[in-house]
């Protein structure tokens, strides 16, 4: 993930927001076919970038499981 880290550090604010939107929609939106998937977040850059979105993603997945 070193390439990701380098590129993230070079992003300006609008680019970071666009990346936040990408992460938000791919991880937290769209159709859920299976209701019990588990995706770990191994890339620390994602957490640094937008912790709130990732927490909501995990919550959304948990809610789908209930």
């Amino acid at each position, binding site marked *: 993930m070193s390439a*990701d880290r380098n590129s993230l550090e070079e992003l300006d604010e*609008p680019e970071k927001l666009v990346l*936040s939107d990408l992460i938000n*929609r*791919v991880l937290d939106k*769209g*159709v859920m076919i299976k209701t019990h998937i*588990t995706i770990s977040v191994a890339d620390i850059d*994602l957490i640094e*970038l937008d912790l709130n979105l990732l927490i909501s993603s995990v919550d959304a997945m948990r809610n789908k499981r209930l």
Partner: protein
Amino acid sequence: MTTYLYGLLLDRNAHLVPAHIAGVGGAALRVVACDKIGALVSTVTTPPRSASIDDVRAHDHALQSVVHHGATVASVRFGQLFADDDDLRRWVGRLDARVVRALESRDGCVEMRLVLALEPRPATGAQAHVGPGTAYLEQLRAPGDSVKGLALRAALGPVVLREHVDPLAGGRGAAFSHLIRRQDEPAYREAVASQPSLAGGTVLGPLAFYSFAEADDE
């Protein structure tokens, strides 16, 4: 070998999906017929159980490529894996009817997203004219304010069929999702460009349905 699912489309539109699109891990996309639904999949040897930025980008890029070739696609959430194509068909067979309804009623439509950064609040002095984008974002900044009920749809006009709004990154911005007819993309971009308060925004798309993948009361 595992079947990785990216999105769903009407099977009658499967011919619009070219053979050269690469997905997660570089594997080629293909369409698995599941009755009236076509499932956009690739065969992966190393399932992406970890959400790396590269894999997230690959998932989205594969869907965008299919949309670019003219298909209407409902995105599937990242990380949906199936033992094989037969396993996939069993799961798709249980698909929520609202997804099928959305694909049928919104065939020919795409999702556009407008990502807006929040400008720093002026320290003093009265603000000049405040456009709808700025007004919305200013309300996002206020703790506890709801995002519901606030919209750009009226400002952008009838080109926008439906709208969904997501706050981004702790109030630093917002993503407006707009459902439009595919042929209206130039008019949509023109409508956004005509709003001075949206000048700093980034328009993304055409995309697969992320916010509009399920039909609602319309």
